[in-house]
Each structure stands twice: as structure tokens, then as C-alpha cells.
């Protein structure tokens, strides 16, 4: 890593990231030895938080650039394997890393909609969008809308949807960064957000997409090591096999037995049941709605789509989608194991036991404000299920202690959670700032701006957006998972139809696409705001995290009908669509395209 990142860097990625991984493991082992020698826990927590942020900052500074193509699309040199890792980190946020396993713990089968929804969308990305957007080969997603739908109206609509979805999402990430940083270095939540913010800015500001790409690869490595270590250890300890994804079946069986003895009416594995353990159509419908909205949202979120602008060619864009889903899969198919092991521990060692002799991890976490509460309501000295309340965010964070691992592993998990939140925040921030600087400033306000000036504007906007997002997060507007799910619905309702139809249906006209976007996004936003803030009753019981269930079909229908009522796109536009469908060869030129 001692040299400027250049062509030589890309050829040596294996060696560089191999050394980096080895170094990180060695660092963890050294801290483990220091812990045995009596170094206090707080110092170990500091080491993990500041050292990892320091490494990301170092990569960010090494990757500084003054080249537009490097800044916006990492010079289009990222190999598919590494782009897969970067997408994995870009994708997996605080919600995936910290909250999801806890959600599965609390919700059982019904919460698996999140696992399915946050993976299945990559099939849509790989088949319907990524290769064609790569062939199109400009800088941003609104670029595509502006060219395909001939003009600035479509471009502005795209930027508005992008901004609303990504901004909601980034607020959730700042929130997560605040929680982790404040817990592990012991400063107030509001201050912790701004410490995290420095970590984000220093990664992305100087090097844009290039810096974010190589930092995200580094962050993926840390987050996956951190996520797998405690649960692999526990699986080995309980069942003698270091593959938790296989062994938690045995845990599930034990849980089922314990549920009977404890008299729990809602079994962990039973599908679509309500709190009373009865089959419920409301749960059933919400399960599908959420799966669909999250999957389609995946294929519409600009910070994910723009990762596929960075591969060397169309073929690599497709392969890179495969690697992305593989690296994401590693975490997602492990999350249910976390939930099962935690539940087994709680049902077998906590519930029904004397309060005076609960396991150490329960006692430790019950002292941290409000995350785990034990209240002996009937004063019998025994803990009943209803007397035990656990926050979903601590399932992953407390797993090292449940597994009986030293504190150093807790520090490792914190570093992993921080890597997950920072990497997603970086990607989102760049998506927003690029849309504002490239699509609004350069394309609309000052098309004659020099390269230098465009980069200055891009960086200034990056800082402004970051500060505003952190300030909003400081007001604690809603829970992490909820905010993230809203972001997916907004993106799905506004962007999916115009992107997919623009490529797959030549007959789509500009006016059709624009009206489709407006109506789909409009109804989604209306449902979300009206049900959340104005007590509007839910339609058919569908919760507002799945608002796109209404917006998505409407966007397709409106685009379809209006397109058929208006004159077909010009021959020139049809040739352009033909040219993005074929990997080889030049793009047919259209009047709204710039040559860069």
C-alpha cells in the first residue's frame, strides 16, 4: 500500500488485500494477548475503532484523484471479484449487520422476509439492468434517464427520487454509526455521529468513487471476519462443527422442545403466524409485500447500480453481480444461525432460572441503559418470559459473550458493525453528491464548467450533504430498519419502471416514463407520509415499509398506457436502445449525450 494507487495497484490486488487481511488478523491476536496481560477493555475498544477508521482514511488519502473518470467511476478498472466485495460492503449496512439477526430472533419466520428481500434483488440487477447500464457507460443513474427520455425533465425526476431514497437511507446509517461509536468509545450519541462523519468524509472526499471502492473492499474483509468469528466459535463449542449454517438445525429442534415446556404459543419456525400462534392473512400478505419491495428496491437504488459502472466491461459487470450476491450471501445465510443460537441460550439458560444466578452476559447487558431489562413482576425470584425484554440490536453484539469469548472479540464485532455502517454511508453519500454535482450542477446549471471546478463543486456538496444527514440523524427520527425499508420502497416505486422499460421496451416514450415515475413515486410517498404522520388507515393491512406495493404497479401501468397513447420514440432513439443491448461496439449517438 506504500505507493500511489495506479495500474500496478490493480494488478497486485490479491497480494495487497491478502497482506491486509493477515495484518488485521495479527492485530486482533496482539490485542487478545494484550487483554490477557491486563490491558483494560476500554483501550481495546478504542484500538479497534480508531485503528480501523485510520486504515480507511489512509486508503482514502492514497486514492485521491483529480481525474473525472477516476472520481465518478473509479477509472472503470475494478475487477469483478473485488467489485463484488465492494458491493457487499456498500450493500450491507448497520441494519444488516446489527439489527437483522435480532429481528429474526424476535420475529422468527415472519422476519425472514428481510433475508429474502435483501438478497433476491440481485437477480433482477444482474439480468435486467447492470450489463446494460454498464454498456451505456456514463457516470450516474439520472444520466441514463436524461438520455433515454430525452431531456432534463426525466433527469430531474430521477435526481429527486434518488435524493429522497438515498437521503432516508443515509440518515439511518448515521444513526447506526452514532450508536456503535458512542457505545464503544463512550461519548454522547450526538457527538459520536460527528466522529463517524469524519470517518466517512475522509474516505470519500478526496478520491470519490475510486477511494470508496478500495475502502469498501477493506471494509468488507473486516465486516465478514467480525460477523462469522463468534458464531463459528459457538457452533464448534456446541456441536463440534465450525459450520453454524448446518448445525443450527439442531438448535432449532431444541428450541421447539423448549417452546413446549415453556408454553410459548408462537413457535420460532412457524410461518405467517400472529402473536397468538394462529395463521394470519395480514402477516402472509405483508411477507410478500415486503419481499417484493425490498427486492425491487435493491434493483433501483442508485448507490448499488453505480457500482456496476466501475467494471472494465459488460461481461465483467454480469460476473460481478454474481460475486456481489455471493459475498452478501455469506452474511445473510449466517444471520438465522445467530438468531437460533441466541434463542437457545435465552430459553435454556435464562428463562425460568433464578434471577440471582443468571449468566454473566445477561447481567452485563442489563446494566447498559434500556437494552435488556429484567423485572421480577411477581417477586418470585424466578425469571419468566414476560419479565425479560431484549432489544434486537444486542443479539449480534452480545454473541461473543454468550459464546464465552474474550472481550477482544466484542471489539472485533464493533469494528465490523462500524465497517458495515461506514461503507454504506460512503456509497450513499457519493451517489447523492454525484447526482447533485454532475446531473444538476454540470448538466443543468453550468455545462461549460471546467474539470477542476466540477470536482470542487462535487466535494463541497459531499460535505454539505454529510453534515445535513448527520444533523437529521441526531434528532432520532425513526428506527434503523424502518428508515432503510422506506428508502427501498421510494427507490422501487420511482426508478424501477423507467429503468427496466427503458432498456427492455423500445416503445417506452419520454412522456410515458416521466408520468409513470411521478405517479408511482407520488402514491408511494403519499401512502408513507399519510399512514405515518396523519393516521391514515392502512390499505388492506399493508404496512408502510412496503409502500412500493402501490407505487410499483402504478408506475408500470401509467408508463405503458401513456407510451401507447403518444408517438413512438424516434428512429434515432430506437437505434440507441439497440446499441445498449449489445455488449460490443459503440453506442448510437443521441443529442443529449456528452462525450467523456
Amino acid at each position: 500500500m506504500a505507493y500511489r494507487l495506479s495500474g500496478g495497484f490493480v494488478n497486485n490486488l490479491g497480494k495487497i488485500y491478502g497482506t491486509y487481511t493477515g495484518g488485521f488478523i495479527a492485530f486482533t491476536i496482539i490485542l487478545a494477548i494484550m487483554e490477557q496481560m491486563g490491558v483494560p477493555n476500554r483501550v481495546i475498544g478504542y484500538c479497534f475503532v480508531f485503528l480501523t477508521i485510520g486504515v480507511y482514511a489512509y486508503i482514502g488519502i492514497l486514492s485521491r484523484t483529480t481525474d473525472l473518470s477516476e472520481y465518478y467511476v473509479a477509472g472503470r478498472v475494478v475487477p469483478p471479484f473485488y467489485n463484488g466485495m465492494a458491493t457487499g460492503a456498500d450493500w450491507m449496512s448497520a441494519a444488516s449487520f446489527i439489527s437483522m439477526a435480532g429481528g429474526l430472533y424476535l420475529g422468527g419466520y415472519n422476519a425472514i422476509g428481510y433475508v429474502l428481500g435483501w438478497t433476491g434483488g440481485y437477480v433482477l440487477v444482474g439480468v435486467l439492468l447492470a450489463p446494460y447500464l454498464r454498456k451505456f457507460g456514463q457516470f450516474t443513474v439520472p444520466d441514463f434517464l436524461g438520455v433515454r427520455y430525452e431531456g432534463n425533465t426525466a433527469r430531474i425526476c430521477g435526481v429527486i427520487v434518488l435524493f429522497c431514497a438515498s437521503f432516508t437511507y443515509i440518515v439511518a446509517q448515521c444513526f447506526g454509526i452514532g450508536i456503535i461509536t458512542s457505545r464503544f468509545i463512550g461519548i454522547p450519541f450526538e457527538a459520536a455521529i460527528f466522529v463517524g462523519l469524519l470517518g466517512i468524509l475522509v474516505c470519500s472526499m478526496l478520491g470519490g468513487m475510486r477511494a470508496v471502492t478500495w475502502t469498501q473492499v477493506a471494509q468488507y474483509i473486516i465486516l465478514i471476519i467480525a460477523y462469522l468469528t463468534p458464531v463459528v466459535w459457538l457452533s464448534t463449542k456446541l456441536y463440534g462443527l465450525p459450520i453454524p449454517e448446518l448445525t443450527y438445525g439442531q438448535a432449532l429442534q431444541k428450541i421447539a422442545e423448549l417452546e413446549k415446556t415453556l408454553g410459548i404459543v408462537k413457535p420460532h419456525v412457524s410461518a405467517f403466524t400472529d402473536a397468538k400462534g394462529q395463521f394470519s392473512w395480514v402477516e402472509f400478505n405483508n411477507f410478500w409485500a415486503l419481499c417484493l419491495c425490498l427486492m425491487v428496491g435493491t434493483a433501483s437504488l442508485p448507490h448499488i447500480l453505480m457500482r456496476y459502472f466501475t467494471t472494465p466491461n459488460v461481461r465483467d459487470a454480469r460476473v460481478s453481480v454474481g460475486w456481489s450476491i455471493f459475498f452478501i450471501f455469506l452474511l445473510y445465510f449466517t444471520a438465522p444461525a445467530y438468531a437460533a443460537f441466541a434463542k437457545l441460550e435465552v430459553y435454556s439458560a435464562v428463562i425460568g432460572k433464578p434471577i440471582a444466578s443468571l449468566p454473566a452476559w445477561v447481567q452485563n447487558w442489563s446494566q447498559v441503559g434500556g437494552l435488556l431489562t429484567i423485572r421480577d413482576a411477581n417477586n418470585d425470584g424466578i425469571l419468566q418470559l414476560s419479565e425479560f425484554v431484549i432489544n434486537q440490536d444486542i443479539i449480534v453484539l452480545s454473541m461473543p459473550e454468550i459464546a464465552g469469548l474474550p472481550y477482544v472479540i466484542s471489539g472485533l464485532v464493533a469494528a465490523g458493525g462500524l465497517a458495515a455502517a461506514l461503507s454504506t454511508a460512503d456509497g450513499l453519500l457519493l451517489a447523492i453528491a454525484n447526482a447533485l454535482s454532475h446531473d444538476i450542477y454540470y448538466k443543468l446549471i453550468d455545462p461549460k464548467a471546467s474539470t477542476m471546478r466540477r470536482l470542487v463543486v462535487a466535494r463541497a456538496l459531499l460535505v454539505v450533504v454529510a453534515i445535513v444527514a448527520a444533523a437529521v440523524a441526531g434528532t432520532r427520527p425513526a428506527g434503523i430498519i424502518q428508515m432503510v425499508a422506506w428508502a427501498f420502497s421510494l427507490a422501487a416505486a420511482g426508478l424501477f419502471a423507467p429503468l427496466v422499460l427503458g432498456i427492455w421496451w423500445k416503445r417506452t416514450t419520454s412522456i410515458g416514463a416521466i408520468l409513470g415515475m411521478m405517479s408511482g413515486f407520488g402514491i408511494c410517498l403519499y401512502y408513507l407520509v399519510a399512514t405515518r404522520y396523519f393516521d391514515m388507515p392502512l390499505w388492506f393491512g399493508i404496512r408502510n415499509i412496503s409502500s412500493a406495493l402501490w407505487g410499483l404497479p402504478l408506475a408500470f401501468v401509467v408508463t405503458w398506457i401513456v407510451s401507447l397513447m403518444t408517438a413512438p420514440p424516434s428512429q434515432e432513439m430506437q437505434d440507441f436502445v439497440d446499441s445498449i443491448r449489445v455488449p460490443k461496439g459503440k453506442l448510437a449517438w443521441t443529442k443529449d449525450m456528452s462525450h467523456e
Partner: protein
Amino acid sequence: MAENLTREQRDAYWAKTSRLMWIIMALWVFFSFVVHFFAVQLNNIVIAGFPLGFYMAAQGSLIAYVVLCFWNASAQNKIDEEFGVAED
């Protein structure tokens, strides 16, 4: 567009590409939705401790997604090569 393709070749290329797209979309619908419609019934089958309905949602469909993405990449690449439109 690749300059050396005739209109017929281009249409044939796109027909094949679309066919692949529809096949993968059908499998996607199957693994994302159809399988899980029967989760309650599938849960009666238990393999290695996993009720099958639960397993499909927690792991089975995810494995299918990974396979579908790599399969799409290689199948589409074959189509590209067949029509001589793969990149060098």
C-alpha cells in the same frame, strides 16, 4: 450496436437474450414467492433439524439466487460469443 450485425442477426440475438431473461425471471419468481406460499405445509418435513419451509426461506432460496446470477453471466456470455458480440 455492433456494426457487423444485420437486422435479422440483431433480432435473433435479442430473442435469445430475452428468452434467457424470462427463464431466469420465472425461476426467480419460483424461489422468491411460489416456494414460500407453501411454507406452512413444507414445515412438516424436517431435515437435519430444519423444517423445510423455514430452510428454504433462510438458505435454500439464497443459494438459488447465487447460482442464478452466475448462471446468467455464463449463459449470456455464450450467447454473446455465438453472435460474435462479446467484448475482446
